[in-house]
């Protein structure tokens, strides 16, 4: 852990060199030839490496989409696994170019930390998981329980709010690493494990005996998870934001990885603008005009990314907040025009 402390200390004290890097992130990224992306160390569905250190997940694919837009190469990205505690320092010190790490968009983070959120890749909410044999059916029965939590998260704050609002006592057991939280929960150090419900679903599958655990029905918070960049670089902010919107826009107009080449010949003006056949939308964000074509070609649209990463961990999209607005969800992109 000393290493982490050193990282934080260095990051804080030596944010010195950052100032030069901050001015024009796009130029720096293009000069070094790859995008440095901060992700979660191991959250299935969002960011996790396989045995060959190939990363996958919705947060990972967002970074690949950015790399595709900039370099026309989804592999031109390097991943930095970060704990919840380290993530903001890593971003503001310039260690990473974009933070795409199941990070909840809150006002204080958006305004106090010198970072800006650019979109919501996943609408989530905090839930609780308990062993079935505890006989608990509602979070309101959790008075006096020991609760395992990851340090430096909104989870910590929500749990404090929830238990205080409902007049219940609890005993927080806080760890720095999600892995340690899960291990301690599995060992019986706590009665309850609380985090974003998507992560709960994923972590449940990694437990020794998933069937003996259940997720309680209560969702106690709003957790809009999205990528963020350093404040003060508007161009880079726009790239990050519009890469996300392009993923949504493509899905809305039915542009997929498979049919993107055909779509180049589409008559639909919205599709033509998206794929750079009409207009000069790429130039305005310092990229080539086929920036969105590159994204879809390499990573697919939002729906495909979701299908590939989040559906396998057991979170259905249909009818959820993460569905497109046209189908009753919240995922909505301003028009590209």
């Amino acid at each position, binding site marked *: *852990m*000393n290493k982490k*402390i050193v990282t*934080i*200390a260095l*990051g*804080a*004290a030596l*944010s*010195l060199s*950052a*100032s030069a890097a*901050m001015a024009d992130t796009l130029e720096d990224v293009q000069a070094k030839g790859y995008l440095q992306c901060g992700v979660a160390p191991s959250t299935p569905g969002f960011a996790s490496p396989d045995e060959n250190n190939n990363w996958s997940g919705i947060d990972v694919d967002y970074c690949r989409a950015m790399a595709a837009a900039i370099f026309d190469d989804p592999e031109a990205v390097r991943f930095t696994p970060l704990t*919840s*505690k380290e993530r*903001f*320092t890593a971003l*503001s010190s310039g260690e990473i170019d974009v933070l795409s790490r199941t990070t909840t968009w809150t006002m*204080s*983070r958006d305004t*106090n*930390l*010198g970072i800006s959120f650019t979109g919501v890749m996943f609408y989530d909410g905090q839930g609780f998981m308990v062993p079935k044999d*505890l006989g608990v059916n509602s979070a309101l*029965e*959790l*008075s*006096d*329980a*020991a609760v395992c939590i990851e*340090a*430096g*998260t909104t989870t*910590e*704050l929500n*749990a*404090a*709010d929830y*238990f*205080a609002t409902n007049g219940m006592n*609890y*005993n*927080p*057991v*806080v*760890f*720095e690493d999600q892995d*340690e939280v899960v*291990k*301690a929960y599995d*060992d*019986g*150090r706590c*009665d309850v494990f609380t985090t974003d419900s998507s992560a709960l679903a994923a972590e449940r599958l990694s437990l020794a005996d998933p069937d003996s655990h259940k997720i309680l029905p209560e969702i106690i918070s709003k957790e809009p998870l999205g990528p963020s960049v*350093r*404040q*003060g670089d508007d161009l880079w902010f726009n790239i990050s934001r519009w890469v996300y919107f392009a993923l949504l826009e493509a899905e809305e107009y039915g542009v997929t990885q498979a049919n993107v080449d055909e779509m180049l010949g589409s008559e639909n003006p919205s599709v033509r603008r998206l794929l750079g056949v009409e207009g000069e939308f790429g130039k305005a964000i310092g990229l080539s005009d086929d920036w969105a074509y590159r994204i879809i070609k390499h990573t697919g649209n939002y729906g495909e990314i979701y299908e590939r990463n989040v559906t396998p961990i057991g979170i259905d999209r249909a009818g959820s907040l993460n569905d497109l607005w046209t189908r009753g969800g919240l995922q909505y992109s301003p028009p590209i025009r």
Partner: protein
Amino acid sequence: MAKSQEQLQQSRSLSSLIYDPKFRSYAFQILLLLVLVGFGWWIVQNTIVNLQAQNKTTGFDFLGVTSGFDIGFSLIEYSRSSTYLDVFIVGILNTLLVAVTGIVLATMLGFVLGVARLSSNWIIARMATIYIEVIRNIPLLLQLFFWYFAVLKSMPSVRDSLEVISGAVFLNNRGLYFPDPNPNDAFLWVQIAVVLVLIGGFFLQRWSVRRLEQTGERFPYIPVFIGLLIVVPAIVWFISGAGLDVSYPERNRFNFQGGIQLPPEFVALLFGLVIYTAAFIAEIVRAGIVSVNKGQTEAAQSLGLKDNDRLNLVVIPQAMRVIVPPLTSQYLNLTKNSSLAVAIGYPDIVNVFMGTALNQSGKAVEVIFMTMAVYLTLSLLTSVIMNIYNARIALTER
């Protein structure tokens, strides 16, 4: 002509100035100082500029803001509506708790081990050697993980808690629970009695030493002192009507309520620190004892000193001079190593303040500065205390 003479003189005085060792040493020191001050100024300036460029707010105002999160183990009253300053204090107290307890226990264990390694009993000496060599050579972090995860796993769950003492002391994977003696008001008299006996014991010891020096007669100081320490408070207890309102731990739906709970994080951290540091202290103690010349022991024997006196009056005082300075560094190490608590979830200052509070408030520079200041203060305090002690036992040169 006169002018060039003057110039010559001037250049000669200049060159002689350069070759003047006194001037040179001052000049270089001033230069070094300037460089250091400049470097420091540059760092501070750069940090300020960068923080502004990142649109971060700075300053210590955040200390008065509600923290919004809970802490599992705290020596003072703390809730989610407490401030960041409270988090800071809770963190310091938790660090102090584990550091002070750790130092006391590690010293005791270390001295026993150090003496054991010199024991003439083959088995005891070998066991101590094995302990020291194994423990010293495994990284502390791994040992902490071992104590926490391996030992936690082998503990029973809350439902099958081990009743160490029936109805009073319980052990399970949530920690060790024991009764909380809540003393009533009259108990103050008992506490006063204990303090008075302790003060009395100090004077008793000085008196017995003086008597020994003047008359050569021994006074059984230690048994008398222990006797007083038990008898006097006991009498006061009965006379004053002091009582304890003991709260026993009781099981509710999930956990035990009431009593005192020592969380496994604390126990694991304390175990890890004590066992690790004791191995180093043992070696220091051994070195100290070995450093006392054998002639000293023989001289003491030839004076007819008893075994105990030989140890207490001749060997140990000389060994302490060798032991104390490195012992101080071990104390400092233990305090600093307690920051590894963060790995196993014990809410020390690094965990709650430099971890959670930093993250929630975003005040990285301020928080890290304050945390470093805490460790620096603790370390300097330990050093000062140990140096005073060292000065007292040091060889008095005449």
